[in-house]
Protein backbone atom coordinates (compact mmCIF):
# COMPACT_ATOMS: atom_id res chain seq x y z
CA UNK A 1 0.00 0.00 0.00
CA UNK A 2 1.78 3.11 -1.21
CA UNK A 3 1.66 6.39 0.70
CA UNK A 4 0.43 8.00 -2.51
CA UNK A 5 -2.59 5.75 -2.96
CA UNK A 6 -6.15 6.62 -2.03
CA UNK A 7 -6.27 3.34 -0.09
CA UNK A 8 -3.56 4.64 2.23
CA UNK A 9 -5.52 7.82 2.98
CA UNK A 10 -8.63 5.75 3.81
CA UNK A 11 -6.45 3.37 5.87
CA UNK A 12 -4.97 6.22 7.94
CA UNK A 13 -8.37 7.85 8.50
CA UNK A 14 -9.87 4.54 9.64
CA UNK A 15 -6.94 3.83 11.95
CA UNK A 16 -7.20 7.35 13.40
CA UNK A 17 -10.93 7.04 14.13
CA UNK A 18 -10.52 3.60 15.74
CA UNK A 19 -7.41 4.74 17.67
CA UNK A 20 -9.19 7.64 19.32
CA UNK A 21 -12.41 5.69 19.90
CA UNK A 22 -10.98 2.78 21.89
CA UNK A 23 -9.96 3.26 25.55
CA UNK A 24 -6.48 4.76 25.98
CA UNK A 25 -4.87 1.62 27.37
CA UNK A 26 -5.77 -0.36 24.23
CA UNK A 27 -4.71 2.28 21.72
CA UNK A 28 -1.29 0.76 21.15
CA UNK A 29 -3.05 -2.47 20.07
CA UNK A 30 -4.80 -0.52 17.31
CA UNK A 31 -1.42 0.76 16.14
CA UNK A 32 0.02 -2.76 16.19
CA UNK A 33 -2.87 -4.22 14.19
CA UNK A 34 -2.71 -1.33 11.73
CA UNK A 35 1.05 -1.75 11.37
CA UNK A 36 0.88 -5.49 10.72
CA UNK A 37 -2.08 -4.98 8.37
CA UNK A 38 -0.14 -2.31 6.49
CA UNK A 39 2.99 -4.44 6.16
CA UNK A 40 0.96 -7.49 5.16
CA UNK A 41 -0.38 -5.60 2.12
CA UNK A 42 3.23 -5.39 0.92
CA UNK A 43 3.28 -9.18 0.53
CA UNK A 44 2.74 -12.07 2.92
CA UNK A 45 6.31 -13.28 2.31
CA UNK A 46 7.70 -10.08 3.77
CA UNK A 47 6.04 -10.90 7.11
CA UNK A 48 8.60 -13.68 7.65
CA UNK A 49 11.44 -11.16 7.67
CA UNK A 50 9.58 -8.84 10.00
CA UNK A 51 8.81 -11.65 12.43
CA UNK A 52 12.36 -13.01 12.32
CA UNK A 53 13.88 -9.62 13.15
CA UNK A 54 11.29 -8.88 15.81
CA UNK A 55 11.76 -12.23 17.56
CA UNK A 56 15.55 -12.37 17.44
CA UNK A 57 16.06 -8.81 18.67
CA UNK A 58 13.35 -9.18 21.32
CA UNK A 59 14.98 -12.33 22.70
CA UNK A 60 18.45 -10.77 22.58
CA UNK A 61 17.13 -7.79 24.53
CA UNK A 62 15.60 -10.04 27.18
CA UNK A 63 18.79 -12.10 27.59
CA UNK A 64 20.95 -8.96 27.75
CA UNK A 65 18.59 -7.45 30.34
CA UNK A 66 18.90 -10.59 32.49
CA UNK A 67 22.69 -10.52 32.17
CA UNK A 68 22.77 -6.81 33.11
CA UNK A 69 20.77 -7.65 36.24
CA UNK A 70 23.10 -10.53 37.04
CA UNK A 71 26.09 -8.21 36.63
CA UNK A 72 24.60 -5.71 39.05
CA UNK A 73 24.21 -8.46 41.65
CA UNK A 74 27.87 -9.50 41.51
CA UNK A 75 30.35 -7.96 43.95
CA UNK A 76 33.11 -5.82 42.41
CA UNK A 77 35.65 -8.27 43.79
CA UNK A 78 34.26 -11.12 41.67
CA UNK A 79 36.40 -10.23 38.65
CA UNK A 80 36.02 -13.65 37.03
CA UNK A 81 32.23 -13.55 37.35
CA UNK A 82 32.01 -10.04 35.92
CA UNK A 83 34.24 -11.00 33.04
CA UNK A 84 32.11 -14.08 32.36
CA UNK A 85 28.93 -11.99 32.16
CA UNK A 86 30.59 -9.46 29.88
CA UNK A 87 31.79 -12.25 27.57
CA UNK A 88 28.32 -13.76 27.48
CA UNK A 89 26.78 -10.38 26.62
CA UNK A 90 29.21 -9.96 23.75
CA UNK A 91 28.32 -13.42 22.46
CA UNK A 92 24.60 -12.59 22.52
CA UNK A 93 25.15 -9.35 20.57
CA UNK A 94 27.46 -11.08 18.12
CA UNK A 95 25.01 -13.88 17.36
CA UNK A 96 22.13 -11.40 16.95
CA UNK A 97 24.14 -9.15 14.65
CA UNK A 98 25.33 -12.08 12.57
CA UNK A 99 21.80 -13.46 12.26
CA UNK A 100 20.27 -10.13 11.27
CA UNK A 101 22.98 -8.76 9.03
CA UNK A 102 23.41 -12.26 7.59
CA UNK A 103 19.79 -12.11 6.50
CA UNK A 104 20.29 -8.64 5.01
CA UNK A 105 23.37 -9.91 3.21
CA UNK A 106 21.55 -12.95 1.84
CA UNK A 107 18.68 -10.86 0.52
CA UNK A 108 20.65 -7.91 -0.78
CA UNK A 109 24.12 -9.04 -1.70
CA UNK A 110 24.20 -12.81 -2.25
CA UNK A 111 23.39 -12.54 -5.96
CA UNK A 112 26.19 -10.04 -6.50
CA UNK A 113 28.59 -12.29 -4.57
CA UNK A 114 27.82 -15.15 -6.96
CA UNK A 115 28.39 -12.79 -9.91
CA UNK A 116 31.73 -11.67 -8.51
CA UNK A 117 32.84 -15.27 -7.99
CA UNK A 118 31.82 -16.07 -11.55
CA UNK A 119 29.27 -18.63 -10.36
CA UNK A 120 25.69 -18.96 -11.64
CA UNK A 121 23.12 -17.42 -9.31
CA UNK A 122 21.12 -19.95 -7.29
CA UNK A 123 17.61 -20.76 -8.46
CA UNK A 124 15.99 -19.57 -5.25
CA UNK A 125 15.90 -15.79 -5.29
CA UNK A 126 15.06 -14.02 -2.04
CA UNK A 127 12.92 -10.97 -2.63
CA UNK A 128 13.97 -7.83 -0.78
CA UNK A 129 11.01 -6.85 1.37
CA UNK A 130 10.06 -3.20 1.74
CA UNK A 131 12.10 -1.22 4.22
CA UNK A 132 14.07 -4.22 5.51
CA UNK A 133 17.26 -2.34 6.35
CA UNK A 134 15.36 0.47 8.11
CA UNK A 135 13.57 -1.64 10.66
CA UNK A 136 16.54 -3.97 10.98
CA UNK A 137 18.89 -1.09 11.83
CA UNK A 138 16.33 0.21 14.30
CA UNK A 139 16.03 -3.19 16.01
CA UNK A 140 19.78 -3.84 16.03
CA UNK A 141 20.28 -0.38 17.60
CA UNK A 142 17.89 -1.47 20.34
CA UNK A 143 19.96 -4.61 21.02
CA UNK A 144 23.21 -2.62 21.27
CA UNK A 145 21.53 -0.15 23.62
CA UNK A 146 20.41 -3.09 25.78
CA UNK A 147 24.01 -4.34 25.74
CA UNK A 148 25.12 -0.91 26.94
CA UNK A 149 22.45 -1.01 29.64
CA UNK A 150 20.77 2.18 28.46
CA UNK A 151 17.32 0.96 29.45
CA UNK A 152 15.69 -2.23 30.70
CA UNK A 153 14.49 -4.39 27.78
CA UNK A 154 10.86 -4.43 26.69
CA UNK A 155 9.16 -7.44 28.26
CA UNK A 156 5.96 -7.34 26.25
CA UNK A 157 6.59 -8.98 22.87
CA UNK A 158 3.56 -7.34 21.24
CA UNK A 159 4.66 -3.87 22.37
CA UNK A 160 8.13 -4.57 21.06
CA UNK A 161 6.64 -5.78 17.76
CA UNK A 162 4.94 -2.38 17.44
CA UNK A 163 8.26 -0.58 17.94
CA UNK A 164 9.75 -2.57 15.04
CA UNK A 165 6.78 -2.30 12.70
CA UNK A 166 5.12 1.12 13.36
CA UNK A 167 3.46 1.57 9.98
CA UNK A 168 4.22 5.20 9.02
CA UNK A 169 7.97 4.56 9.26
CA UNK A 170 8.38 0.87 8.46
CA UNK A 171 9.11 1.25 4.74
CA UNK A 172 11.61 4.10 4.61
CA UNK A 173 12.47 5.13 8.15
CA UNK A 174 13.48 7.27 9.91
CA UNK A 175 15.54 4.89 12.04
CA UNK A 176 14.16 5.68 15.48
CA UNK A 177 15.61 4.95 18.91
CA UNK A 178 13.72 2.74 21.32
CA UNK A 179 13.98 5.23 24.19
CA UNK A 180 12.44 8.01 22.08
CA UNK A 181 9.77 6.13 20.16
CA UNK A 182 8.52 3.15 22.19
CA UNK A 183 7.08 5.09 25.16
CA UNK A 184 5.08 7.31 22.78
CA UNK A 185 3.72 4.29 20.90
CA UNK A 186 2.45 2.45 23.94
CA UNK A 187 1.19 5.17 26.25
CA UNK A 188 -2.14 5.77 24.44
CA UNK A 189 -2.18 9.40 23.40
CA UNK A 190 -5.14 11.66 24.06
CA UNK A 191 -6.88 13.29 21.13
CA UNK A 192 -5.39 16.69 20.42
CA UNK A 193 -6.92 18.66 17.53
CA UNK A 194 -3.73 20.70 17.14
CA UNK A 195 -1.62 17.58 16.71
CA UNK A 196 -4.01 16.27 14.06
CA UNK A 197 -3.99 19.62 12.26
CA UNK A 198 -0.18 19.96 12.40
CA UNK A 199 0.21 16.37 11.26
CA UNK A 200 -2.15 16.90 8.33
CA UNK A 201 -0.28 20.02 7.25
CA UNK A 202 3.08 18.26 7.45
CA UNK A 203 1.83 15.25 5.49
CA UNK A 204 0.38 17.56 2.84
CA UNK A 205 3.73 19.31 2.55
CA UNK A 206 5.22 15.86 1.93
CA UNK A 207 2.64 15.04 -0.74
CA UNK A 208 3.35 18.38 -2.39
CA UNK A 209 7.07 17.56 -2.56
CA UNK A 210 6.48 14.04 -3.82
CA UNK A 211 3.57 14.44 -6.26
CA UNK A 212 4.01 17.97 -7.55
CA UNK A 213 7.82 18.23 -7.70
CA UNK A 214 9.61 14.89 -7.36
CA UNK A 215 7.63 12.72 -9.76
CA UNK A 216 7.90 15.39 -12.46
CA UNK A 217 11.63 15.97 -11.91
CA UNK A 218 12.08 12.20 -12.09
CA UNK A 219 10.79 12.17 -15.67
CA UNK A 220 13.64 14.41 -16.86
CA UNK A 221 16.22 12.45 -14.83
CA UNK A 222 15.00 9.14 -16.30
CA UNK A 223 15.09 10.51 -19.88
CA UNK A 224 18.62 11.90 -19.56
CA UNK A 225 20.15 8.96 -17.68
CA UNK A 226 18.25 6.48 -19.85
CA UNK A 227 19.70 7.84 -23.11
CA UNK A 228 22.79 9.62 -21.84
CA UNK A 229 24.84 8.94 -24.98
CA UNK A 230 22.62 11.28 -27.01
CA UNK A 231 23.22 14.23 -24.72
CA UNK A 232 26.04 16.64 -23.95
CA UNK A 233 27.02 19.14 -21.27
CA UNK A 234 24.05 21.29 -20.32
CA UNK A 235 21.45 18.57 -20.82
CA UNK A 236 23.50 16.09 -18.76
CA UNK A 237 23.88 18.75 -16.08
CA UNK A 238 20.11 19.32 -16.13
CA UNK A 239 19.57 15.55 -15.84
CA UNK A 240 21.65 15.37 -12.64
CA UNK A 241 20.06 18.56 -11.28
CA UNK A 242 16.57 17.14 -11.81
CA UNK A 243 17.70 13.87 -10.23
CA UNK A 244 18.91 15.78 -7.14
CA UNK A 245 15.53 17.56 -6.97
CA UNK A 246 13.70 14.25 -7.44
CA UNK A 247 15.73 12.45 -4.76
CA UNK A 248 15.41 15.18 -2.15
CA UNK A 249 11.69 15.77 -2.68
CA UNK A 250 10.99 12.03 -2.84
CA UNK A 251 12.85 11.05 0.31
CA UNK A 252 12.18 14.12 2.45
CA UNK A 253 8.59 14.26 1.16
CA UNK A 254 8.08 10.62 2.18
CA UNK A 255 9.53 11.38 5.62
CA UNK A 256 7.21 14.40 5.98
CA UNK A 257 4.26 12.10 5.26
CA UNK A 258 5.61 9.63 7.85
CA UNK A 259 6.10 12.30 10.50
CA UNK A 260 2.79 13.95 9.66
CA UNK A 261 0.79 10.72 9.92
CA UNK A 262 2.58 9.80 13.18
CA UNK A 263 1.81 13.26 14.57
CA UNK A 264 -1.89 12.72 13.89
CA UNK A 265 -1.62 9.88 16.43
CA UNK A 266 0.22 12.21 18.81
CA UNK A 267 3.58 10.58 18.10
CA UNK A 268 6.70 12.63 17.46
CA UNK A 269 8.98 10.71 15.07
CA UNK A 270 12.66 11.71 14.70
CA UNK A 271 13.63 14.35 12.12
CA UNK A 272 15.48 12.92 9.13
CA UNK A 273 16.22 16.08 7.15
CA UNK A 274 17.29 19.56 8.10
CA UNK A 275 17.46 21.55 4.88
CA UNK A 276 20.60 19.93 3.39
CA UNK A 277 20.83 22.60 0.69
CA UNK A 278 21.93 25.02 3.40
CA UNK A 279 24.86 22.82 4.50
CA UNK A 280 28.17 24.68 4.72
CA UNK A 281 30.42 21.62 4.48
CA UNK A 282 30.14 17.96 3.56
CA UNK A 283 30.19 16.99 7.25
CA UNK A 284 27.37 19.45 7.82
CA UNK A 285 25.54 17.99 4.81
CA UNK A 286 25.60 14.53 6.36
CA UNK A 287 24.25 16.00 9.58
CA UNK A 288 21.29 17.33 7.60
CA UNK A 289 20.65 14.52 5.08
CA UNK A 290 19.26 11.21 6.29
CA UNK A 291 20.05 12.31 9.84
CA UNK A 292 18.96 9.13 11.62
CA UNK A 293 21.17 6.90 9.46
CA UNK A 294 24.13 9.21 10.15
CA UNK A 295 23.43 9.13 13.88
CA UNK A 296 23.03 5.36 13.80
CA UNK A 297 26.41 5.02 12.07
CA UNK A 298 27.98 7.47 14.54
CA UNK A 299 26.74 5.73 17.67
CA UNK A 300 27.01 2.09 16.60
CA UNK A 301 29.97 2.12 14.15
CA UNK A 302 32.03 5.30 14.34
CA UNK A 303 32.33 5.69 18.13
CA UNK A 304 32.90 2.00 18.95
CA UNK A 305 35.44 1.69 16.15
CA UNK A 306 37.30 4.90 16.98
CA UNK A 307 37.52 3.94 20.64
CA UNK A 308 38.27 0.27 20.09
CA UNK A 309 41.54 -0.98 21.54
CA UNK A 310 43.28 -1.57 18.19
CA UNK A 311 42.43 1.90 16.89
CA UNK A 312 43.27 3.71 20.12
CA UNK A 313 46.62 1.87 20.21
CA UNK A 314 47.19 2.80 16.58
CA UNK A 315 46.27 6.40 17.42
CA UNK A 316 48.85 6.52 20.19
CA UNK A 317 51.46 5.19 17.82
CA UNK A 318 50.62 7.59 14.99
CA UNK A 319 50.54 10.60 17.33
CA UNK A 320 54.07 9.73 18.43
CA UNK A 321 55.49 8.86 15.02
CA UNK A 322 53.64 11.05 12.52
CA UNK A 323 53.99 14.75 13.04
CA UNK A 324 51.16 17.22 12.62
CA UNK A 325 47.45 16.77 12.01
CA UNK A 326 47.81 13.51 10.08
CA UNK A 327 49.17 11.70 13.13
CA UNK A 328 46.14 12.77 15.13
CA UNK A 329 43.41 11.86 12.71
CA UNK A 330 44.49 8.41 11.53
CA UNK A 331 42.12 6.40 13.79
CA UNK A 332 39.13 8.68 13.20
CA UNK A 333 39.83 8.65 9.46
CA UNK A 334 39.79 4.86 9.38
CA UNK A 335 36.45 4.91 11.21
CA UNK A 336 35.16 7.68 8.89
CA UNK A 337 36.06 5.67 5.80
CA UNK A 338 34.40 2.60 7.25
CA UNK A 339 31.20 4.56 7.91
CA UNK A 340 31.05 6.00 4.39
CA UNK A 341 31.92 2.64 2.90
CA UNK A 342 28.96 1.15 4.79
CA UNK A 343 26.68 4.02 3.75
CA UNK A 344 27.80 3.48 0.16
CA UNK A 345 27.26 -0.26 0.18
CA UNK A 346 23.96 0.19 2.03
CA UNK A 347 22.67 1.84 -1.16
CA UNK A 348 23.64 -1.20 -3.21
CA UNK A 349 26.39 -3.75 -3.78
CA UNK A 350 27.89 -2.01 -6.77
CA UNK A 351 31.23 -0.35 -7.31
CA UNK A 352 29.63 3.04 -8.00
CA UNK A 353 28.02 3.09 -4.54
CA UNK A 354 31.30 2.11 -2.87
CA UNK A 355 33.05 4.89 -4.76
CA UNK A 356 30.29 7.29 -3.70
CA UNK A 357 31.09 6.35 -0.09
CA UNK A 358 34.82 6.85 -0.61
CA UNK A 359 34.20 10.14 -2.41
CA UNK A 360 32.61 11.43 0.80
CA UNK A 361 35.26 9.84 3.04
CA UNK A 362 38.14 11.32 1.03
CA UNK A 363 36.67 14.82 0.96
CA UNK A 364 35.92 14.85 4.69
CA UNK A 365 39.38 13.54 5.62
CA UNK A 366 41.04 15.98 3.21
CA UNK A 367 39.11 18.90 4.68
CA UNK A 368 40.33 17.92 8.15
CA UNK A 369 43.91 17.65 7.00
CA UNK A 370 43.81 20.95 5.13
CA UNK A 371 41.87 22.91 7.75
CA UNK A 372 45.02 24.76 8.86
CA UNK A 373 45.82 25.75 5.29
CA UNK A 374 42.24 26.91 4.70
CA UNK A 375 42.40 29.07 7.82
CA UNK A 376 45.66 30.59 6.65
CA UNK A 377 44.23 31.49 3.24
CA UNK A 378 41.02 32.86 4.71
CA UNK A 379 43.12 35.24 6.81
CA UNK A 380 45.39 36.19 3.92
CA UNK A 381 42.42 36.95 1.70
CA UNK A 382 40.67 38.90 4.50
CA UNK A 383 37.53 36.80 4.20
CA UNK A 384 34.87 37.64 6.74
CA UNK A 385 33.66 34.17 7.66
CA UNK A 386 30.49 35.51 9.30
CA UNK A 387 29.35 37.34 6.14
CA UNK A 388 26.34 36.16 4.16
CA UNK A 389 28.38 36.02 0.98
CA UNK A 390 30.84 33.56 2.54
CA UNK A 391 27.94 31.43 3.77
CA UNK A 392 26.52 31.44 0.24
CA UNK A 393 29.89 30.41 -1.16
CA UNK A 394 30.11 27.53 1.35
CA UNK A 395 26.60 26.36 0.42
CA UNK A 396 27.34 26.41 -3.31
CA UNK A 397 30.67 24.62 -2.79
CA UNK A 398 29.01 21.89 -0.70
CA UNK A 399 26.15 21.48 -3.17
CA UNK A 400 28.65 21.17 -6.03
CA UNK A 401 30.52 18.37 -4.24
CA UNK A 402 27.28 16.53 -3.46
CA UNK A 403 26.15 17.11 -7.04
CA UNK A 404 29.30 15.43 -8.41
CA UNK A 405 28.72 12.44 -6.14
CA UNK A 406 25.17 12.11 -7.50
CA UNK A 407 26.49 11.25 -10.97
CA UNK A 408 27.77 8.06 -9.34
CA UNK A 409 24.58 7.09 -7.55
CA UNK A 410 22.28 7.55 -10.55
CA UNK A 411 24.39 6.48 -13.57
CA UNK A 412 24.29 2.77 -14.37
CA UNK A 413 28.04 2.34 -13.87
CA UNK A 414 31.18 4.17 -12.78
CA UNK A 415 32.29 4.36 -16.43
CA UNK A 416 29.01 6.07 -17.41
CA UNK A 417 29.22 8.50 -14.48
CA UNK A 418 32.79 9.49 -15.36
CA UNK A 419 31.87 9.89 -19.03
CA UNK A 420 28.93 12.10 -18.08
CA UNK A 421 31.08 14.27 -15.80
CA UNK A 422 33.66 14.61 -18.56
CA UNK A 423 31.02 15.62 -21.10
CA UNK A 424 29.39 18.08 -18.70
CA UNK A 425 32.68 19.90 -18.30
CA UNK A 426 34.31 19.53 -21.71
CA UNK A 427 31.32 19.82 -24.01
CA UNK A 428 28.85 22.21 -22.37
CA UNK A 429 26.68 23.02 -25.44
CA UNK A 430 24.95 25.86 -23.64
CA UNK A 431 22.70 26.46 -26.67
CA UNK A 432 20.59 23.57 -25.36
CA UNK A 433 19.13 26.05 -22.88
CA UNK A 434 17.25 28.00 -25.56
CA UNK A 435 17.11 25.84 -28.70
CA UNK A 436 14.24 23.69 -27.39
CA UNK A 437 16.25 20.63 -26.32
CA UNK A 438 15.18 21.14 -22.70
CA UNK A 439 11.57 20.73 -23.79
CA UNK A 440 12.31 17.33 -25.32
CA UNK A 441 13.21 15.62 -22.06
CA UNK A 442 9.72 14.43 -21.15
CA UNK A 443 8.28 17.62 -19.68
CA UNK A 444 6.74 20.51 -21.65
CA UNK A 445 7.20 24.17 -20.73
CA UNK A 446 4.20 24.21 -18.37
CA UNK A 447 5.39 21.09 -16.55
CA UNK A 448 8.91 22.49 -16.19
CA UNK A 449 7.40 25.71 -14.86
CA UNK A 450 5.54 23.71 -12.19
CA UNK A 451 8.81 22.09 -11.07
CA UNK A 452 10.56 25.46 -10.86
CA UNK A 453 7.67 27.15 -9.08
CA UNK A 454 7.39 24.20 -6.70
CA UNK A 455 11.09 24.47 -5.91
CA UNK A 456 10.73 28.23 -5.41
CA UNK A 457 7.99 27.61 -2.82
CA UNK A 458 10.07 24.89 -1.16
CA UNK A 459 13.23 27.01 -0.99
CA UNK A 460 11.34 30.04 0.31
CA UNK A 461 9.85 27.93 3.12
CA UNK A 462 13.24 26.37 3.92
CA UNK A 463 14.95 29.76 3.90
CA UNK A 464 12.36 31.01 6.38
CA UNK A 465 12.96 27.94 8.58
CA UNK A 466 16.74 28.22 8.31
CA UNK A 467 16.57 31.70 9.83
CA UNK A 468 14.52 30.41 12.76
CA UNK A 469 10.96 30.65 11.41
CA UNK A 470 8.29 28.01 12.08
CA UNK A 471 5.74 27.92 9.27
CA UNK A 472 2.94 26.08 11.08
CA UNK A 473 3.28 28.10 14.28
CA UNK A 474 3.34 31.35 12.30
CA UNK A 475 0.09 30.30 10.64
CA UNK A 476 -1.49 29.88 14.07
CA UNK A 477 -1.19 33.64 14.62
CA UNK A 478 -3.17 34.43 11.46
CA UNK A 479 -6.87 34.94 10.90
CA UNK A 480 -8.86 31.69 10.82
CA UNK A 481 -9.62 32.25 7.14
CA UNK A 482 -5.90 32.29 6.36
CA UNK A 483 -5.45 29.10 8.40
CA UNK A 484 -8.13 27.29 6.43
CA UNK A 485 -6.78 28.67 3.16
CA UNK A 486 -3.38 27.29 4.15
CA UNK A 487 -4.93 23.84 4.22
CA UNK A 488 -7.26 23.97 1.23
CA UNK A 489 -5.06 25.83 -1.26
CA UNK A 490 -2.17 23.31 -0.98
CA UNK A 491 -4.73 20.49 -1.08
CA UNK A 492 -6.12 21.91 -4.32
CA UNK A 493 -2.59 22.32 -5.69
CA UNK A 494 -1.76 18.68 -4.90
CA UNK A 495 -4.96 17.44 -6.55
CA UNK A 496 -4.70 19.65 -9.62
CA UNK A 497 -0.94 19.64 -10.14
CA UNK A 498 0.03 16.38 -8.45
CA UNK A 499 1.23 13.68 -10.81
CA UNK A 500 -1.73 11.37 -10.41
CA UNK A 501 -5.26 10.81 -11.58
CA UNK A 502 -6.53 8.83 -14.55
CA UNK A 503 -4.61 5.64 -15.19
CA UNK A 504 -1.41 7.10 -13.86
CA UNK A 505 0.07 5.48 -10.76
CA UNK A 506 2.64 7.54 -8.90
CA UNK A 507 6.00 5.75 -8.75
CA UNK A 508 7.01 4.25 -5.40
CA UNK A 509 9.44 5.98 -3.09
CA UNK A 510 13.09 5.53 -4.00
CA UNK A 511 14.33 4.70 -0.51
CA UNK A 512 11.75 2.03 0.32
CA UNK A 513 13.81 -0.49 -1.70
CA UNK A 514 16.66 -0.23 0.84
Amino acid at each position, binding site marked *: MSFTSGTFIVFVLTALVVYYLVPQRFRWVVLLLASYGFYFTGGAGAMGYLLFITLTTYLAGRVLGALNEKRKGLPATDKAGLERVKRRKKQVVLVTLLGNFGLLYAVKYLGVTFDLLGLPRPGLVLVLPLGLSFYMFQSVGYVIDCY*RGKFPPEKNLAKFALFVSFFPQVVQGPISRFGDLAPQLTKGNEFDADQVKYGTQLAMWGYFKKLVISDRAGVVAATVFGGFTQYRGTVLFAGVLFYCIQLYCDFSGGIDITRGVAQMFGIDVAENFCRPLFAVSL*TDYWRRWHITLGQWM*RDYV*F*YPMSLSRPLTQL*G*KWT*RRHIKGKLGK*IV*PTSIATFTVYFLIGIWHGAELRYILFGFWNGILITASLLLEGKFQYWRKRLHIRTESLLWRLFQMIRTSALVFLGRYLTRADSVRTALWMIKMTVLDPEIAALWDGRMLALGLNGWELMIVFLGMAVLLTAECYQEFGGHVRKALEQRHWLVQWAAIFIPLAVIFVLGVMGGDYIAPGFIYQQY
Partner: protein
Amino acid sequence: MEQLLKLLSEICPGIDFEKETALIDDGLLESLDIVTIVGEIMDEFDVELNVDDLLPENFNSAQAIMDLINSRRS
Protein backbone atom coordinates in the same frame (compact mmCIF):
# COMPACT_ATOMS: atom_id res chain seq x y z
CA MET B 1 41.44 21.53 35.19
CA GLU B 2 43.93 23.89 33.54
CA GLN B 3 45.58 20.97 31.81
CA LEU B 4 42.20 19.92 30.42
CA LEU B 5 41.27 23.43 29.28
CA LYS B 6 44.60 23.73 27.48
CA LEU B 7 44.06 20.37 25.77
CA LEU B 8 40.51 21.28 24.72
CA SER B 9 41.53 24.67 23.33
CA GLU B 10 44.26 23.06 21.28
CA ILE B 11 41.85 20.58 19.71
CA CYS B 12 38.99 23.03 19.18
CA PRO B 13 40.30 26.58 19.06
CA GLY B 14 37.67 29.30 19.17
CA ILE B 15 35.40 27.72 21.78
CA ASP B 16 35.21 29.27 25.24
CA PHE B 17 35.47 26.06 27.26
CA GLU B 18 35.44 27.93 30.56
CA LYS B 19 31.95 29.32 29.94
CA GLU B 20 30.16 26.94 27.57
CA THR B 21 27.81 24.50 29.24
CA ALA B 22 26.05 23.03 26.20
CA LEU B 23 28.95 21.94 23.99
CA ILE B 24 27.02 18.96 22.64
CA ASP B 25 23.46 20.27 22.87
CA ASP B 26 24.41 23.41 20.92
CA GLY B 27 26.42 21.41 18.38
CA LEU B 28 29.75 23.09 19.20
CA LEU B 29 31.52 19.74 19.44
CA GLU B 30 31.20 17.24 16.60
CA SER B 31 31.73 13.49 16.70
CA LEU B 32 35.23 13.86 15.25
CA ASP B 33 36.14 16.37 17.97
CA ILE B 34 34.78 14.13 20.68
CA VAL B 35 36.79 11.12 19.56
CA THR B 36 39.94 13.26 19.32
CA ILE B 37 39.28 14.71 22.80
CA VAL B 38 38.75 11.23 24.24
CA GLY B 39 41.98 9.97 22.63
CA GLU B 40 43.97 12.91 24.04
CA ILE B 41 42.40 12.55 27.48
CA MET B 42 43.33 8.86 27.63
CA ASP B 43 46.91 9.81 26.79
CA GLU B 44 47.28 12.87 28.99
CA PHE B 45 45.40 11.68 32.05
CA ASP B 46 46.16 7.99 31.71
CA VAL B 47 42.53 6.90 32.11
CA GLU B 48 40.44 4.40 30.15
CA LEU B 49 37.29 5.77 28.52
CA ASN B 50 34.99 3.75 26.33
CA VAL B 51 31.98 4.13 24.11
CA ASP B 52 29.55 3.94 27.04
CA ASP B 53 31.02 7.19 28.36
CA LEU B 54 30.06 9.05 25.20
CA LEU B 55 26.92 10.60 26.62
CA PRO B 56 26.03 14.24 25.93
CA GLU B 57 25.97 15.03 29.66
CA ASN B 58 29.60 13.90 29.99
CA PHE B 59 30.80 16.34 27.31
CA ASN B 60 28.54 19.37 27.61
CA SER B 61 31.09 21.37 29.62
CA ALA B 62 34.74 21.26 30.62
CA GLN B 63 33.63 20.61 34.20
CA ALA B 64 31.56 17.59 33.09
CA ILE B 65 34.56 16.21 31.20
CA MET B 66 36.73 16.77 34.28
CA ASP B 67 34.17 14.96 36.44
CA LEU B 68 34.23 12.04 34.00
CA ILE B 69 38.03 11.87 34.17
CA ASN B 70 37.95 12.00 37.97
CA SER B 71 35.35 9.24 38.14
CA ARG B 72 37.62 7.02 36.06
CA ARG B 73 40.66 7.81 38.18
CA SER B 74 39.02 6.76 41.41
